[in-house]
C-alpha cells in the first residue's frame, strides 16, 4: 500500500459531508474546540498533512479529524478498510466546556501516517457509539475509557470495569473526582 492510496483513503474520509476535517493549526490548538478551523480544501489538506511537515514534528500526528459522535464508527470503518490499526482510545475531560473529548489514535504499518479522530460528547451524559465490532481491540480501550471517564459506549458488549475493582462506581480521571 503506497502513499498515494492512503491519500485517496483520507480524501474519502474527508469528503464525507458530515465529517469536518481541520488542518492542525499550531498556535490555537484544535483540541480547544471552538477554534476549529474551517474545512480546508481536500486536495490542499492532503498536501499539507500527508507530507513530513513541521506540523508532524511538533505534534506527532499527521491528520486530525473531528467528527460527530455518530460518525465515529463510520470513520473507523474507512480506516480499517485502508488497513490502519488502532493505537489507543482515550478521553480528555474538558470540565470548563462541560464536554468530554474521546480521542482515537490510528496508525499505519507501512506508511508514516498517524490519524487522530476526535469527538466531543456532553459531560453530563457522555455517550459514543462503540467501534468494538470494527476493531476488536477497541473493546478493552473503550472499557478503560468507561472506567476512567464514565463514557457509555453504546452497543459495547460488556462495559464492566476493566482496571478498576469490579464494584467500582467512580470515574477517577474526571477532573472533579476526589478519592
Amino acid at each position, binding site marked *: 500500500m503506497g502513499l498515494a492510496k492512503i491519500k485517496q483513503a483520507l480524501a474519502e474520509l474527508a469528503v464525507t459531508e458530515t465529517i469536518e476535517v481541520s488542518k492542525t493549526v499550531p498556535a490555537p490548538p484544535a483540541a480547544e474546540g471552538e477554534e476549529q478551523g474551517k474545512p480546508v480544501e481536500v486536495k490542499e489538506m492532503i498536501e499539507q498533512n500527508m507530507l513530513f511537515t513541521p506540523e508532524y514534528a511538533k505534534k506527532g500526528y499527521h491528520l486530525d479529524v473531528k467528527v460527530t459522535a455518530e460518525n465515529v464508527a463510520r470513520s473507523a470503518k474507512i480506516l480499517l478498510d485502508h488497513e490502519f490499526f488502532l493505537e489507543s482510545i482515550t478521553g480528555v475531560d474538558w470540565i470548563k466546556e462541560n464536554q468530554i473529548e474521546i480521542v482515537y489514535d490510528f496508525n499505519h504499518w507501512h506508511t508514516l501516517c498517524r490519524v487522530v479522530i476526535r469527538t466531543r460528547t456532553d459531560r453530563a451524559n457522555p455517550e459514543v457509539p462503540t467501534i468494538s465490532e470494527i476493531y476488536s481491540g477497541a473493546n478493552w480501550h473503550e472499557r478503560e475509557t468507561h472506567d476512567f471517564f464514565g463514557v457509555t459506549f453504546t452497543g459495547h458488549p460488556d462495559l464492566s470495569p476493566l482496571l*478498576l*475493582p469490579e464494584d467500582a462506581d*467512580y470515574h*477517577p480521571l474526571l477532573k472533579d*473526582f*476526589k*478519592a
Partner: protein
Amino acid sequence: MAPLDQVLALGRANSLWPMTFGLACCAIEMMAAGASRFDLARFGAEVFRPSPRQCDVMIVAGTITKKMAPAVKTLYDQMPEPKWVIAMGNCAISGGPFAFEGQYAIVEGADKFLPVDIYIPGCPPRPEALIEGILELEEKITGSRRWPRVQCG
C-alpha cells in the same frame, strides 16, 4: 527456648521457602536474588513454591492495590503455620511513590492487613537487601544472628 524448640527454630530458619508471588518491580529483584549472582540458595531459601500451602514466608514484593488486597489476604490465610511476611520495597511498606493525595487504587502498606515481620526499604531494594531481610527473619526466628557470619564475595 527449650532445646527442641531451638532445633525446630534452627530447622525453620534454615529452610525458609518463599512463595512464587511477585506484584511489581520488586519481584524482578526477588528473582535476581534467587539467580546466580546473589543465590538465595546458599541459605536454603531458594525453593520458591508456587502453592501457598508449601510456603513459609510470603515476600510481598510490590504495590498492593485495593483490587489485589483480598487475594493477598487469601494467599496468606492459605499458608500453614508457622508463617512469616516480608514487606519488600517502599510500596509494600507504606505505598511508596504511589501514596499521594487523591490516590484511590492502592493499599498503603502490607501491614494494613497482614502481620509483617520484616520491612525491606528501597524502590526497589537491591537483592542484597532482600538477602539481609531473610537473614533478619532468621534472626527473628532463632533469636540470634546466623553464625558464622556470612561473608560477601
